[in-house]
């Protein structure tokens, strides 16, 4: 039933294939987000970027975003792919496609998905400039609740 698609890749992201993947006969809209490598950051010229991830956890978190998007919005399918390794200016670092019967849900879900990815998925970007490299500032994920003494935290928040 669920035909969502989540992946990390070191190859170029095939955006048209992801759009085709989410588009079904019942859909009236596909909304996509194409995150691409910009040639400047904080007033400095960027040469290229590298991305690394806690891959197993990142995939888990991406799947959770997909499951939660389904609960929040009246959508059909979600595809979400993030690239790792070295990326050149203009290349796609992340691509999200969301299909829905109606455009409103697709727009909202796609926006929510990229915002949540940027806040909660363990992926890190390093920016390379002519005079050095820096890790991007990044965002701190929301703090988890303190566990009950001795109890293992629940495996998944999604039901």
């Amino acid at each position, binding site marked *: 039933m669920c035909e969502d698609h989540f992946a990390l890749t070191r190859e170029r992201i095939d955006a048209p294939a992801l759009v085709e993947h989410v588009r079904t006969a019942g859909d009236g809209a596909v909304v996509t987000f194409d995150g691409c490598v910009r040639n400047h950051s904080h007033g400095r010229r960027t040469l290229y970027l590298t991305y690394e991830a806690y891959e197993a956890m990142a995939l888990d978190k991406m799947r959770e975003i997909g499951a939660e998007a389904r609960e929040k919005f009246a959508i059909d399918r979600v595809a979400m792919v993030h690239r790792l390794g070295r990326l050149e200016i203009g290349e796609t670092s992340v691509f999200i496609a969301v299909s829905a019967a109606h455009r409103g849900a697709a727009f909202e879900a796609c926006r929510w998905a990229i915002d949540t990815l940027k806040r909660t998925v363990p992926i890190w970007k390093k920016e390379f400039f002519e005079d050095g490299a820096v890790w991007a500032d990044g965002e701190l994920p929301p703090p988890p609740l303190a566990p009950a003494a001795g109890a293992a*935290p629940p495996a998944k928040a999604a039901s």
Partner: protein
Amino acid sequence: MAPVMAMTAKVLFFGRLKELVGVGEDLFEVQEGTSISRIFAQYAERWPRLAEFRGSVAASRNREFAAWETPVEAGDEIGFLPPVSGG
């Protein structure tokens, strides 16, 4: 080496923390009653600059974000994660 493995947790460092420590993955001998916070503190004794990042690091246990006081058991996978910057 199974008995040794059974007493350890796998500890992972990412981004600038990985650069600081010099490795992305380490085995940590787990003692009774230890916590994520105590493990980080012990690494910070060996790499004092780690302590500077304590306030901006998130911790994970077995691939879920976890509170610093979370108990750690042998076989666990503990991650120290700088602020995330995907996208």
